[in-house]
Each structure stands twice: as structure tokens, then as C-alpha cells.
């Protein structure tokens, strides 16, 4: 495994940030955990050195014992799990608790879902199943989410200095977990726009996330 690479350290040995791993050729490229500078590869994290073969290129990687801190950054296009804090006429304020790549975050981040981003305004093309009944274009925020609900949303943009911007405008995005207003029991989704309390049978309006089968 070691023959083709001209690395200064053995494969599977430990390296430390800044260790110069070797030279940078067309076939030996920097992978995760390494960086390149002036024709040389340097390790950028403390971990185990390894090579991943990818077509004709070999990626030099250094894997740390725990995941990189940069994976916990909230990036555009990720699915996130958030809890609704408060709701106004124009937007819903939520706190992001977990992301796709980063897992559960240590500290929640603030975000908003605008009223225009709750319903789909154009036919969704990136899902395979276009349910025409689920194409309500304009929602009232209070009919879609309520404070205390947990929602699955997608990051639309990095927003301004205070908060991220999320969107619910896809069939699989929306409310995942909600408690009923009167009794506080966990409600079950009845359709794409209703949730029902199993004890009392009372229906409440929510934009429900499409359940995964």
C-alpha cells in the first residue's frame, strides 16, 4: 500500500498539525486533514495518516480521533432540526439544535423562517414525488408552525449577522413533532396540513413533514 507514495511518514502513523508529509504531485493530492503549500503537503490536524485511492489520484488524508470542528458549521443547503421559539405575522423564530453534517450542536443557533418560505411557490422539481395537493402557496405562519414545535428545515442562506434563514418549501420539510394545544399530548400527522391529537381527536393545522417510510 505504501509503495507508490513518497511520503515522509509511514501510513497509519500519527502526525501532528504542520508536519510536512511530502510533495504534491498530480497523482498525490491533499485530502481531508491536509493542506498544500508551495508544492508540499502538510498535515493540518492531529491524527492518523492514510491514503484513499480515487480513480487515478491518491488522496492523502489525516483522520483525527473525533470529527473536525469545521463540520459543525451551518452551511447553505443542509437539512437542520430546529425548535420554534416564537411566531409572528411575517416569520417564525427558531433555534437550530442539530444539523446534517455536524450532529447535535453544542450551542443552538438562531434562525428565522419567513412566511414566503413556508409554502412552495414553484412546482418542486428536486423531489421524485410531486404531490399536487401539497402545493399550497401561501401559508399563515400560525397555521404552519406553533411555538414549541420541532421542525425539519433546509438552510436557505446565511442570513444577516444575527440569524440564519431557513425554508420549509419542500414536501419532506415541516413540523415533525408537536404537542396539542389543550392537553399537551404528542400529535400525529393526519395529512400534509393537519395534525390530530390521539386522545381528544382535535385537529390542528400544521405544515407537516412528509413521513419517511
Amino acid at each position: 500500500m505504501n509503495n507508490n507514495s513518497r511520503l515522509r511518514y509511514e501510513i497509519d502513523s500519527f502526525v501532528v498539525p504542520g508536519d510536512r508529509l511530502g510533495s504534491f504531485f498530480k497523482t498525490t493530492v491533499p485530502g481531508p486533514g491536509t493542506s498544500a503549500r508551495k508544492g508540499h503537503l502538510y498535515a493540518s490536524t492531529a491524527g492518523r495518516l492514510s491514503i484513499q485511492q480515487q480513480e487515478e489520484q491518491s488522496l492523502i488524508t489525516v483522520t483525527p480521533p473525533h470529527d473536525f470542528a469545521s463540520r459543525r458549521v451551518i452551511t447553505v443547503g443542509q437539512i437542520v432540526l430546529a425548535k420554534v421559539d416564537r411566531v409572528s405575522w411575517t416569520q417564525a423564530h427558531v433555534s437550530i439544535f442539530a444539523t446534517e453534517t455536524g450532529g447535535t450542536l453544542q450551542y443552538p443557533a438562531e434562525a428565522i423562517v419567513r412566511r414566503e418560505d413556508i409554502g412552495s411557490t414553484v412546482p418542486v422539481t428536486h423531489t421524485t414525488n410531486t404531490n399536487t395537493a401539497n402545493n399550497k402557496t401561501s401559508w399563515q405562519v400560525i397555521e404552519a408552525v406553533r411555538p414549541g414545535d420541532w421542525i425539519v428545515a433546509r438552510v436557505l442562506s446565511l442570513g444577516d449577522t444575527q440569524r440564519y434563514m431557513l425554508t420549509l418549501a419542500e414536501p419532506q420539510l415541516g413540523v415533525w413533532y408537536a404537542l396539542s394545544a389543550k392537553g399537551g399530548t404528542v400529535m400525529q400527522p393526519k395529512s400534509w396540513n393537519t395534525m390530530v391529537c390521539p386522545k381528544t381527536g382535535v385537529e390542528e393545522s400544521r405544515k407537516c413533514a412528509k413521513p419517511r417510510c
Partner: protein
Amino acid sequence: MTKSAFKLSNCYFPLELPSSQEGGTKERHSGDGKTTRASHSLRRIHIDSQVLQSGSALVEMGHTKVICQVTSPVYASSSLLPSSVQLSMDEGTLYCQVNYLSHASYPTARILNASATPLDQSHQQFSSSRINTWRLSRESDLSARLLSALQAAVPLQQYPKCCIRVQVTVLQDDGSVLPACIAAASIALTRACVELYDLVTSCQVALQNGILLADPDLDEEESADALVTLAFLPNWKEVSLLEQSGKLSPAQTNQAIDLCRDGCRTMHRFLRDHLLQKLSESKTKD
């Protein structure tokens, strides 16, 4: 993750009384109470990491002890950031803060005596404000220097609209605080799995009576004619912080910087050995 027990390695050694001899060469102690050191040697170094939460380090250089805690990434609305920090959309921000532990960590008597006039000495209630001013200015000074030393080594474009918070607490100040802070921050950043271009190492050199002393302790720092601090990225061979206070001839400046660079290389060896040891320990546990 389990918290490991750590202890400060030499906090029970009594500090030597200031020497009563005038002039002549004074013996330099290396901080473990036993050995003396040459003018170009560093003091005894002890490093421990993951002492608080994940991403923390404790560094002792002689009697100077600092603890560093790194939190990353910190988002915009978090209570960990003061409102003065502005986050940028394109790349991350590094926020460094150095704090002195109150009362125990700095030489109160020396600060008071250094700035005392006969009139001040009789007014006890002003002494605490003088200590506070000294402490605040020193903390902000160290924070700014730590920030400029670390900024060269962290690839901030991986953290858009986030902040990496480096919090250093000085448990005891016995000279060479900034090199200890920088070493602790490097180890803590690595253990927090923040990618670094290179480990930042640092060393301080004092000029006293024409002799260059590496890693000065507090007495040597205060009686020195000049002080040179260098923060260096050893593999990239780049300098991230170079400071000089006092008066040096050009030849002496060159010699001081060379001595600093040797000190940085030694520090790098210590940092590297510690990180490799921790890696092999954690792998054998799995």
C-alpha cells in the same frame, strides 16, 4: 466523554526568596526546585490537554501556569461572544481572551511598589484600582498579541459566519506568559479538532547586562534592559509575531531572534511529543 483528572505539577514548590546578592551572576532556576539552568535553556515544561472540556490545555513553564479552553464553532447569537465581535459571512473570526485569575496570579506587591509615590502609599483604597488598571491593560495587551500570533495558523475560510473562541486563564504569572499562552492555545486548538496550518510556538528572550537569557522569569523580565518575543510557525518557517521592547543593538537583536527561534524549536518538540503521546493513548483505548 470522561473527564480526566489533572493536577498542576509544581504548585507546592515554595518559590525561592529573592537573592540578596548585588551584582555578579545570579543562578537561574528551572522551576522544579532542584536544577539550575544556563542562560540559553528554557524552564521545565509540563503540558496536559483535555483538562476541562474537549479542546483545552494546561501549560506550565517553570512557575508560569496557564489554562486554555477553545470553543468552536460559536454561532452568531451565542452568549459566549461579546457584542463587540463582528462575524463575517465569508470567513470565520478568531476571538482570543486572556484573563488573570484574581488575586493569586500576579505579583500584587510589585505592581503597587512600581507605581507608588509617597503620597499614594498612604492611600490604601486606591491600590485596588491601580491593580485593576494594570490587570485590564495587561489582559487586553496579551489578548491582542495572542490573536495576532494565532491568526496566521488557523484556516478561517472553513468557518463562515462562525467564531472560534480561545479563552486563556493565567493561573500564575512568573514571566514568559505570552509563550505559555500561545503554546496552550496551539494544543487546545489541535485537541478541539480545529484544523491548523501549523502549530504556533513562541519564546521570549531578555537582555540583562549584555547577556541574553531565554525564557526569563519574572525577576529577570523586570530587571531586563530589553525583551524580545517571537511566535513562529516551525514547519512553514514563518513568523507570526515579533515584538521587542527596550534598547538593543542590531547585532544583539539578531542574536536574540536566533535564540528565540531555537527556543521555539524546542517548544515545538515538546508540543509534538505531547500530541503524539495523547494520540497513541486514545487509540489504544478504542
